[in-house]
């Protein structure tokens, strides 16, 4: 055996930013900040013994380098290994059998969707996840026809974002989630006070928020709460747009769009089957815009764990400009506090499951 070398677990992938880097722990769904110097050691000096690395830096940083490896070992991000050739990188090829993986269905008080028809067509496209956004005050009765239409398909998850109404008590919503087990989360907006119910034994979360979410214009927010540290998202994000790739939406008027915030409609779901809309030449035009092509984002350490937005851009004339609702600056590694909000850049884990 040769001298052991430090090897990152293949699911722990370093990503370099302009000012600092992160190691994305795609298995345990967390990330750790590291200095760019350590990024360089882990990439340019991968597979070298600690003695060789010390020498490569002219013994200027021997102590720091030892500390770096101790940090990585302590967080179980890698291991000392005599045969690093046996531990290849993960092939980050992304593919999926579904033509559409996720969908948004918008509803307001004037909507007259044929839920059975929409859900059946989404099922034909293989859609596995649906978010229903109701912008108006809802009662349990507003949810029922939607959930009934989703009773037997291939959907694996339904997220509900619904306007507060007096009927929407935690008990009533827990009963909805218990009856319709596809429901993964229920967020009630425009609520009198914010509160998060403890997750039920199946992990379903019911939350109330005071924010008013009354139109698609509320969408496109970028913050660490929406970071997704997992292998599939990371792999998808290397090649594709992490928000729009294989997404299809039906807005409150029935217009078929990539996302309800985008202007272009591919026809109304009353007249046009979803698969015909999807087949139109430019429906998938934005799917392949990945973070490596987007200004500023391409220098950001969060680029493969952050989900993009192409609807609200910092420069409306440039399809490759940064999302306008992101206030992170990778060149200073600081979140610029927006008007009233304070955000934390120090959090290193995200407990999403």
């Amino acid at each position, binding site marked *: 055996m040769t001298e052991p070398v430090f090897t990152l677990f293949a699911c722990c992938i370093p990503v370099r930013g302009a000012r600092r880097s992160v190691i994305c722990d795609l298995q345990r769904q967390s990330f750790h900040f590291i200095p760019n110097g350590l990024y360089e050691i882990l990439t340019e000096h991968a597979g070298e013994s600690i003695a060789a690395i010390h020498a490569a830096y002219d013994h200027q940083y021997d102590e720091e380098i030892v500390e770096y490896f101790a940090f990585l070992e302590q967080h179980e991000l890698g291991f000392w290994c005599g045969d690093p050739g046996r531990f290849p990188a993960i092939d980050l090829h992304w593919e999926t059998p579904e033509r559409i993986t996720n969908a948004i269905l918008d509803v307001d008080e004037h909507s007259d969707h044929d839920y059975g028809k929409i859900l059946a067509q989404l099922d034909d496209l293989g859609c596995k996840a649906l978010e229903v*956004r109701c912008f108006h005050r809802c009662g349990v009765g507003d949810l029922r026809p939607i959930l009934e239409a989703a009773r037997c398909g291939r959907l*694996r*998850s339904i997220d509900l974002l619904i306007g507060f109404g007096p009927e929407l008590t935690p008990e009533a919503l827990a009963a909805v989630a218990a009856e319709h*087990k596809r429901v993964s989360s229920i967020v009630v907006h425009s609520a009198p006070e914010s509160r998060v119910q403890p997750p039920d034994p199946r*992990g379903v979360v019911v939350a109330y928020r005071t924010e008013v979410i009354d139109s698609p214009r*509320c969408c496109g*927010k970028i913050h660490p*709460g929406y970071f997704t540290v997992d292998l599939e*998202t990371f792999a998808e994000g290397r090649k594709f747009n992490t928000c729009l790739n294989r997404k299809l939406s039906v807005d409150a008027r029935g217009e078929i769009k990539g996302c309800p915030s985008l202007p272009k409609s591919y026809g109304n779901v009353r007249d046009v089957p979803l698969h015909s809309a999807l087949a139109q030449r430019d429906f998938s035009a934005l799917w392949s815009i990945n973070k490596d092509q987007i200004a500023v984002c391409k220098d950001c350490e969060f680029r493969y764990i952050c989900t993009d937005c192409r609807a609200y851009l910092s420069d409306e004339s440039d399809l490759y400009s940064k999302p306008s609702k992101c206030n992170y600056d990778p060149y200073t590694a600081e979140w610029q506090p927006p008007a009233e*909000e304070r955000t934390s850049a120090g959090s290193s884990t995200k407990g999403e499951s």
Partner: protein
Amino acid sequence: MADERDDLFARLSPAGQELAPVIYRFLVPSPLRDATIMRLVESRPYRAGGYVCASFRKPISKCCGQDD
């Protein structure tokens, strides 16, 4: 949940204990609930009664601000 029903080997009759291989002395009890709560539904086209549901891995829309 530590009660006497946890020790399945102790609940075997003398004849049963004699017939059981040594590994039966080291059975690990666990509450059924913890292990198996999953969201299972009917999925007609795939003829699965226990079709497994789970949250989508990434946010579908991003309308909510960050929690404090």
